[in-house]
């Protein structure tokens, strides 16, 4: 099959869908490659470089569309490009089918197959062709560079002979791929980086990149990100209020804000309001990666860099990946190459459009004259396995109720035990003489004290406890001491033996306990 990459017609687009490297890889799959003359120029790739890699350079777009079986592109096609498609031809490109219904229908009418790179499902197997992530990664990186370009100070704090420079404080809003890339870049440059996301489960990822997670105290049934394919879901108005309040608190101390908050299929949420911009210091920079969808900041003007009255720069460029065209072309071309690899399972240059494959099915938006968007949910669950159903937290009332019932239960048991024990003691009292009962009271008390005291003994000290109780139990020596004075020889001898044994025990027991305890050391 012939795979052709036309020159991007969108104004300012510098990327290209085919690189010499990817062309060589595609050839190994049995394909031939075409490229429109000058397509790679803005990405720093000359036509000669393509020729060296064995790519046929075609002078005009029309000739390319006619000659290629598969057209690969970066930006979604213009209407006239769609009109050039023919039956059975395949287009692989970003497409945004939800926003470009007209294009979609037109492509279906032409009976062309369209594979939208933005529709690749987010599952592990498809990561190698996840162009959104690779572009977002570049955007995140570039956003920090762009911010640095407009920021008048160091990122890193320095103590120099000429004075002390405080580190820049960067806030990244939204910790998706772009956000995490921005965090990584910003911390690598030495800034103090804070990051916020509505999905509390990404806190760990944020911290792993070296930023501090801005924690929001809010009780809400937050949807697990995994349920929405790893993207954020819209949040409730109360949550939004709470979030804005937190941002207002942070705004005066932040030098650079990078917002990356997007909700699939919706305008970007407004998170950085005008009053927050007013609170920021002159010279601060806001880079709005969501500018294309209307921007996260109130003042963002898409594709423009503006300076507010209080000297805050707001960057609203929408073409960050394109601004790093060499890098992004390389990554995008690799994503495309992986997609075509999956479409050519036999590596024989024959496309097998397997609609049973989750990834291919998900990305295909028109096929054989039909619109196949939206796709059915993938068979393989997206991203992470759903965490085990958490046990429902008992409500405060339930807790209280269970505490009360546990308390009642305990009271019942205790009262029952006391009643039995008390009854037994009283029964003894009925028959036993008073002299016995005097001792008996002491005995009962001592048992009770013993129970109370021993429960507190540390587990690790059970052996010393045994040794000490052993030593103390030699109190039996008292009995022998009382008897040794008897006038009977036999009694004296027996008592003497008793004293001897008990004495061994006293000294041995205490000594051994001391030895053991002396060994316990703190590190």
């Amino acid at each position, binding site marked *: 099959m012939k795979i052709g990459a036309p020159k991007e017609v969108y104004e300012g687009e510098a990327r290209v869908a085919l690189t010499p490297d990817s062309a060589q890889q595609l050839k190994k799959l049995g394909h031939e490659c075409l490229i429109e003359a000058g397509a790679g120029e803005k990405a720093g790739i000359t036509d000669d470089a393509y020729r060296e890699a064995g790519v046929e350079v075609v002078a005009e777009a029309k000739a390319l569309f006619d000659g290629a079986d598969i057209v690969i592109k970066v930006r979604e096609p213009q209407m006239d490009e769609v009109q050039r498609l023919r039956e059975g031809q395949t287009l692989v490109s970003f497409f945004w089918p939800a926003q470009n219904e007209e294009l979609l229908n037109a492509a279906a009418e032409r009976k062309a197959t369209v594979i939208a790179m933005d529709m690749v499902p987010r599952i592990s197997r498809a990561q190698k062709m996840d162009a959104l992530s690779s572009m977002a990664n570049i955007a995140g990186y570039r956003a920090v560079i762009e911010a640095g370009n407009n920021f008048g100070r160091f990122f890193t704090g320095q103590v120099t002979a000429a004075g002390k420079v405080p580190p820049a404080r960067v806030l990244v809003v939204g910790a998706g791929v772009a956000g995490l890339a921005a965090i990584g870049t910003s911390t690598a440059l030495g800034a103090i980086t804070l990051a916020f996301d509505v999905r509390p489960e990404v806190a760990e990822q944020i911290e792993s990149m070296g930023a501090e997670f801005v924690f929001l105290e809010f009780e809400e049934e937050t949807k697990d990100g995994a349920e929405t394919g790893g993207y954020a879901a819209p949040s409730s108005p109360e949550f939004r209020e709470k979030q804005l309040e937190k941002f207002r608190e942070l705004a005066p101390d932040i030098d650079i804000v990078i917002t990356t908050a997007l909700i699939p299929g919706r305008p970007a949420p407004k998170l950085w309001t005008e009053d927050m911009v007013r609170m920021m210091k002159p010279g601060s920079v806001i880079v709005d990666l969501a500018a294309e969808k209307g921007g996260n900041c109130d003042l963002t003007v898409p594709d423009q860099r503006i300076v507010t009255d209080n000297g805050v720069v707001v960057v609203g460029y929408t073409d960050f990946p394109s601004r790093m065209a060499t890098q992004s072309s390389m990554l995008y071309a690799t994503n495309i190459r992986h997609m075509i690899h999956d479409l050519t399972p036999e590596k024989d240059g024959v496309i097998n459009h397997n609609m049973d494959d989750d990834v291919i099915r998900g990305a295909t938006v028109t096929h054989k004259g039909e619109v196949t968007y939206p796709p059915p949910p993938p068979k393989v669950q997206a991203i992470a396995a759903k965490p085990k159903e958490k046990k429902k937290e008992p409500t405060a009332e339930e807790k209280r109720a269970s505490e009360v019932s546990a308390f009642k239960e305990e009271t019942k048991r205790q009262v029952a035990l006391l009643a039995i024990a008390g009854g037994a003691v009283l029964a003894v009292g009925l028959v*036993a*003489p008073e002299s*016995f009962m005097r*001792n008996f009271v*002491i*005995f009962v008390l*001592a048992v*009770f004290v013993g*129970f109370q*005291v*021993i*429960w507190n*003994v*540390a*587990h*690790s*000290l059970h*052996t*010393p*406890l*045994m*040794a*000490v*109780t052993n030593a*103390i*139990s030699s109190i*039996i*020596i*008292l009995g*022998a*001491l*009382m*008897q*040794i*004075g*008897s006038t009977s020889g*036999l*009694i*004296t001898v*027996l*008592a*003497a*033996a*008793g*004293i001897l044994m*008990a*004495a*061994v*025990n*006293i*000294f*041995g*027991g*205490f000594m051994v306990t001391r*030895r053991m*305890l002396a*060994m*316990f*050391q703190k*590190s």
Partner: protein
Amino acid sequence: MDFGFTIAAYAVATVLFVLSLGGLSNQEKAKRAVWYGIVGMAVAVGATMVGPGSGLWLMSLVLIALGGIVGWQLATRVQMTQMPELVAIMHSLVGLAAVLVGINAHLEIGRVAAAFTAGDLPFPQPEGPMSTAAYDLWLGLTDFAMIIGKKTAVEVTILRIELMLGIWIGAVTFTGSVVAYGKLAGRINSAPVQLPGGHMLNAGAAAASLLFAGLYLGYAESGAVAILMLLVLTALALFIGYHLIMGIGGADMPVVVSMLNSYSGWAAAAIGFSLGNELLIVVGALVGSSGAILSYIMCKAMNRSFISVILGGFGGTSGPQQQVEGEQVAIDAAGVAAALNDADSVIIIPGYGMAVAQAQQSVSELTRKLRAKGKEVRFAIHPVAGRLPGHMNVLLAEAKVPYDIVLEMDEINDDFPSTDVAIVIGSNDIVNPAAQDDPNSPIAGMPVLECWKAKQVFVSKRGQGTGYSGIENPLFFKENTRMFYGDAKASVDSLLPLID
């Protein structure tokens, strides 16, 4: 000095003893607590000697000094691994002393009765004020006899019951402790052994004890028969102590030792009743209840009832045990060392095997080396690891392992999944997953250390045999388990030079 002073001193001693036991709630306070115990004992002994009734001071002092020297020697010479044996054999001394004191009390009663009869006076004392003649005679008695001399008939009967109890419990404690000592010291086979008849024999002996107790009370007045009955009773109790403990396996020794500890306390309390000595009662009860609680705590840790431990052997199995599949994979020292060098967190689970091999110093050295490299090393101690409650803690402390990295089962069990390497040194049943997985296992339901959840498990073990309880351990067959065969000390020593 008079009686009041002795009682006051007893009060002081009681407070000191309670503080001494309560002070063991943490390691630092414990060192002070032992001194409370020592002072309490000194006060008690001193007060008794100056109190009424005791004579032969010099002889008492000499005896105490003699016993002290022996005890001192024993305590300083003993190896920490022999601690369980020492505690057991010392219990037997308390038991024997209780028997002697009890028999003395009986003899004394006989002598007092004889004295009164010789003076043609009634004994026991009738109700109401004592006659002048009786009072004169009573005044001439020595001190313990004085307590007996003023008793009425009911009181004397109670006295006899008390002294029988003291003797009986003391005798059970004596032989029981001797057998426990033998098993712990390895002089007797630690497997449960019972004479034909098993528990029926114990029950029979207990019933016979009751019978002879009754006979003793019936023939109490006729000296020769009474002492004979008492001796038979003692012999029966000695037999019960012997046979009961013989029937309990080595793995249950922690419970047995603390149970015997409890018995020695109850014996002292019973003797205290018969001698009318408050301090004996109080301290006996303290020791008795503390031993009982320790036994309870340990039975709970093994998820077994006290009765089933005492009656010996494991009980309550139904159906066949799960078959263990797979094979035990051995590993050499280099492999273990490589894993340790890579690991960030290590948990060591010591058991009786470590004590037997005297490996605690080597383990401590290994810990020191790993910690010096910045790795997190902790110890997980099962409540019934070893042969004495807290046995492992003492051994590790002896080897200078800091106690704040030695954790209890409940504290550390949740940490295994985040641990890189778990090392099992000479323990078996306490890390047996069958306790959780196999409802037919004899140890089903016993809480165990979930070491198999660690990324890697190394088991240092002598050979392929089963543990004390004779139960196969599926841990050894798990995929992430490697068997590190050999003597625990030699094995750990071979690791040391490989840790860099």
